[in-house]
């Protein structure tokens, strides 16, 4: 019965996905680090309520593209982005868009778990606090609980909310970071190799979590693991030497890709 309902949800989601609107649209996106060009006119659309995996060999520009989506590249000196990226209908590089607001809408989870060296509660409540999302303490408690619930961490930490977040295990820390990102109610969550520092069990938990989060959020994930891309994503984009090689349904990508380079990379012939 339970299985039935789950697969029904899956089906509904897939249905939603296939005619999903494009949550984020990247058009002719190029990135320069000083004189060096790192991305070449990438056109990539991110569909709503979909997990989009970005794959490709090291240095291919997939992380660079990911960081364009919430303008984290702004913090790097001499980094210049051209082209146009929209979130819904807003051009995120427009003068009128405030980067603080953008990052509240497009959250990010990093490669290495990086909880603040504060309590678990403070880790989660920090985002809502600076964005003014709660009116009072009770409100905040609720946000913290809901975020931890969604990240599947509530059961493990509910008795030690006021202990340091850095005392958790690596996998728990990463889920804490995901909970922290969820707490500000983003629309899109960017994940930059979120499992690369985790052991297989913790990885499985995070992947499961990504799977569940898809119902409410649009997710873009950079990964080096082909299996992970195949497991968690519905759409996959392959980057090579700063160019988008191919973007397709994950199923098709891993069975019958259109581009020879994708085929070679997935088969392990280069990269």
């Amino acid at each position, binding site marked *: 019965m339970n299985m039935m309902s789950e697969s029904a949800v899956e089906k509904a989601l897939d249905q939603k996905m296939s005619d999903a609107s494009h949550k984020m649209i990247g058009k002719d996106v190029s990135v320069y680090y000083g004189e060096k060009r790192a991305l070449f006119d990438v056109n990539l659309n991110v569909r709503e309520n979909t997990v989009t995996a970005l794959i490709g060999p090291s240095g291919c520009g997939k992380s660079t593209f990911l960081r364009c989506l919430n303008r984290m590249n702004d*913090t790097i000196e001499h980094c210049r982005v051209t082209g146009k990226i929209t979130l819904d209908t807003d051009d995120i590089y427009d003068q009128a868009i405030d980067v*603080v607001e953008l*990052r*509240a809408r497009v959250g990010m989870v*990093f490669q290495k778990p*990086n909880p603040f060296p504060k309590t678990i509660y403070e880790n989660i409540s920090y985002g809502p606090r600076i964005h003014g999302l709660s009116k009072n303490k009770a409100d905040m408690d609720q946000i913290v609980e809901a975020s931890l619930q969604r990240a599947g961490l509530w059961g493990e930490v509910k008795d030690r909310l006021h202990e340091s977040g850095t005392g958790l295990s690596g996998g728990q820390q990463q889920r804490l970071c995901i909970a922290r990102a969820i707490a500000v109610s983003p629309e899109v969550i960017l994940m930059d190799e979120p499992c690369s520092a985790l052991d297989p069990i913790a990885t499985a938990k995070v992947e499961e979590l990504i799977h569940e989060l898809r119902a409410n959020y649009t997710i873009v994930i950079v990964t080096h693991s082909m299996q992970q891309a195949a497991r968690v994503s519905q759409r996959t984009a392959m980057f090579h030497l700063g160019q988008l090689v191919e973007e397709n349904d994950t199923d098709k990508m891993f069975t019958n890709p259109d581009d020879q380079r994708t085929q070679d990379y997935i088969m392990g012939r280069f990269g």
Partner: protein
Amino acid sequence: MTDVVSPAAGIPKAKSIRRDIGIKGRYAAERRFRAYGIAALSFGIIFLMLLLWSVVSKGYTAFQQTMITMPVEFSQQIIDPQNERATNPQKLMTANYPVVARNALAKLLNASVDDRVAARAIGQMLSDGVRVQLRDLVVANPAIIGTTQTVRLLASGDIDSAYKGQIDLTVSQENRKINDQQLGWMKQLSDSGALAKHFNGGIFVNGASSRPEAAGVGVALIGSFYMMLIVLVLALPIGVAASIYLEEFAPKNKFTDLIEVNINNLAAVPSIVYGLLGLAVFVNFMGLPRSASLVGGLVLTLMTLPTIIIATRAALKAVPPSIRAAALGLGASKMQTIFHHVLPLAMPGILTGTIIGLAHALGETAPLLLIGMVAFVANYPTTPLDPSTALPVQIYMWANEAERAFVERTSGAIIILLLFLILMNVGAILLRRRFERRW
């Protein structure tokens, strides 16, 4: 198959091509290096021990002072013969208190004050400070005139030195500051228990005095305290703000590179140059008073700033970039990222740098000499604008004095200064522990 075998036959065995790398020599070199290290360390420890031993062995006696406890008759005959103290309050201030004290001591020794030479010798056994001591008693309570009170009076510096065994008594009495008669009296008083060593609170509270027994570091302590306060209040915020701007906000270009090089150089500028700068700018140009702890504090602030800036920048740099990324990724502004996350993590480093800078400033002498803090200040400074001295300058001044009793005071003041430095360093360590977080 033959392909695999033939090259193996052609290439000499791996063992024989390995060059002699001198394993034994390597271990010997390591042992030698360790021995050098231990030797260097022992050398340092021995000298530190020598220094501390020298200072403490010379200085601990400064915390004890020889005093004479005796009944003193506050004779109206001497203090106020015309009984005019009701109309002329000045009378009590200028009365001849040393004679009161001398007569009391003579009585205790059963000596006659009519013998002028003996009377003089008895008077010399008491400190000049008794004038102030008795005056304060009488002014506070004029009713004691005409009565006899038991009072503990300071012995003179020479008696103090002799009693502590610091005067060479084998020299003939014409060549020492204390004669055999006085020595005899001293022994008599000591045997009767009237003359004894007591804890010397005066060294902590008294101001400057040409009499070693009445001199103390009170004024210097106040002056040093004011200066530390000024340095802390000015250098910490300015230094931290400058570092945050340079480290986090300033664009990286030739101009900021130049500033950075200059800050590093300023940290190495001899402190006396800061003294000249302070003299030229604060005293001569801005007209601030000479010898004031305000000027001293400003000069020391300039001197401490580079230290604090360098320490703070290092502490900010040491905060892992992942913390910044986490905060920025959540939508915190740059300012929020720095003040909510980076600064608290850099705090231990900043505080340590600041306290070490302060400790450095506390021990600094040269710039203070130039702005006139090397002065004879007997009265407590009430504001930082009043003339005062500082602890290290007081040490410098006492070290120049000729009297034997100043030698122990110099070492005593060094002990006080070292205690303050140790306190500050312990404070730095405790703060570091308190604020340190692991990530």
